[in-house]
């Protein structure tokens, strides 16, 4: 399939899904009668796909182990909420010439704000910390993630520890999965370009990469900024789904959740990570009945998987697909 076709596919996914599931109970389409609980799970799955695929570009493809993904998600969530909730009325007034499209335009604006703010945060964190390797980088990114959270917690303008309420519910299934498809497209396109080869060379052998003229700093920072941008988008979608965000929701544990998705799906496999993100979101809900044993079941599952398939569920599948493409 041509790459341009996949971009068209993204738009198509967005259009079809938003047409089918508008999320409004009075929608005429029969499929729109889907109950809210299921709808929420489907949207959460989409958000998790964006988070996992974007972390995968940093940890999986470029081999830089980051534990700060939730921090960038928080920047995106708060940045976008600042547009729609805090700046809502004046911005709507300014956009009033657009008529009925004004709220949607404001949402797009807030998504962009969330994504770009997170990307800037990613650049600020990435430049100094990407000199470190392995465990050291993991600890520093963990630290930065927590710093972001604590700064938000102590900023009264965005609600401090109480959080931010009354964020308009703009996020629909169409937006979420459309953007998830866009995210998957971007990552796959980057991987099959000079960037992707740079990322993989850095992961495989940094010294050899430098010796082959690959500017390792450039590629590491690029991966980090792209990853942060999409984490910010996911945060923005999340904020406009739940309508209420607190700093606690973006703690270190959220980062770990995403790391688990990436490891479970297979480091460096976009397809595997996508499947794992959906699977874990659904599993999380299915195991809700087991209540306090949920986390035990989760941990057991992980242990079994790591013993049986250390490369992750679908680790290596991308290479297998590539090999098949080359043969034909």
């Amino acid at each position, binding site marked *: 399939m041509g790459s341009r076709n996949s971009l068209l596919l993204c738009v198509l996914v967005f259009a079809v899904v938003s047409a089918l599931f508008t999320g409004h109970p009075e929608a005429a389409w029969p499929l729109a009668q889907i109950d809210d609980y299921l709808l929420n799970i489907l949207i959460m799955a989409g958000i998790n796909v964006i988070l996992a695929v974007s972390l995968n570009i940093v940890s999986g493809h470029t081999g830089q182990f980051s534990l700060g993904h939730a921090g960038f998600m928080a920047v995106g969530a708060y940045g976008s909420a600042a547009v729609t909730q805090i700046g809502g009325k004046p911005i709507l007034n300014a956009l009033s010439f657009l008529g009925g499209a004004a709220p949607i335009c404001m949402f797009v604006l807030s998504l962009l704000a969330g994504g770009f703010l997170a990307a800037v945060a990613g650049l600020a964190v990435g430049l100094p910390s990407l000199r470190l390797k392995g465990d050291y980088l993991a600890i520093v990114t963990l630290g930065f993630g927590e710093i972001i959270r604590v700064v938000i917690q102590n900023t009264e303008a965005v609600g401090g520890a109480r959080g931010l309420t009354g964020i308009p519910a703009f996020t629909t299934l169409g937006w979420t999965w459309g953007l998830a498809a866009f995210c998957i497209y971007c990552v796959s396109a980057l991987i099959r*370009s000079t960037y992707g*080869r740079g990322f993989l060379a850095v992961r495989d052998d940094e*010294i050899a990469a*430098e010796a*082959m003229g690959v500017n390792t700093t450039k590629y590491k920072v690029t991966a980090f900024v792209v990853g942060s941008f999409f984490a910010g988008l996911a945060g923005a979608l999340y904020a406009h789904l739940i309508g209420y965000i607190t700093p606690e929701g973006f703690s270190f544990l959220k980062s770990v959740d995403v790391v688990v998705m990436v490891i479970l799906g297979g480091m460096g496999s976009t397809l595997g990570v996508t499947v794992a993100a959906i699977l874990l979101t659904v599993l999380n809900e299915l195991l809700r009945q087991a209540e306090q044993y949920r986390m035990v079941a989760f941990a057991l599952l992980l242990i079994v998987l790591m013993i049986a398939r250390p490369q992750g569920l679908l680790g290596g599948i991308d290479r297998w697909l590539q090999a098949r493409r080359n043969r034909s």
Partner: protein
Amino acid sequence: MKPILELEKVVVRFGGLVAVSAVDFHVGEGELVGLIGPNGAGKTTLFNVITGVYKPTEGGIRFDGQTVGGLSASDITSRGIARTFQNIRLFSSLSVLDNVVAAFNLHLKSGFLGALWRGKQFREQERAVHEEALQLLDVFGLKSAAHQPCRSLAYGDQRRLEIVRALATKPRLLLLDEPAAGMNPTEKVELMRLIRFTQERFGPAVLLVEHDMKVVMGICQRIAVLEYGRKIAEGTPGEIQQDRRVIAAYLGEEVVDA
């Protein structure tokens, strides 16, 4: 012969240890120079300082007339110095072809939006670079293995692939760090042929660190000898074989009974 690489009183110090001490040295354009010396003499350190892995503590390194001492490794490679490694360092998860294609990066335009949009220009460049990489592999007899994972290659072929990968950066000076290490005699003969062939076909100057005297004496036009970080001799293979200090460095000095 015009010198392409010039080292002037280069010193590399690690704390109190002087690994390379005031070495003057040059490689001429298109020349094949050997660098030998006992273990720990500072050969690999000298390599690392030329390729930017370490920075020289003192002294100057000029490549093509311009100072390169202290630049980053990727900067130095982009100016035309490429290397292979003593212990093979291929990009292990990539295919044979992608190893070579990755080394072309430096000569490619890489617009971020271009990579996302994948327009005609981008696809044209991708096609051209894959083609060029395949041709390069073909020249070195690795084309049939192009889509295999590079780890599946035989040891000698992995060494060969490292040379191909280094050539993909289009170097004017190629540094080979013990290319014959771990090879059997047949592979060594093959390697000598390969190095000569590389020079004839692509024309870079070659600086070779090697322990195997047959290989070094067999192909080098000029040889420099290091011991304890100092250059103790330099000359043609014939001269080096006769040099008393070199023999002493390798075999020890004669003990004269009192």
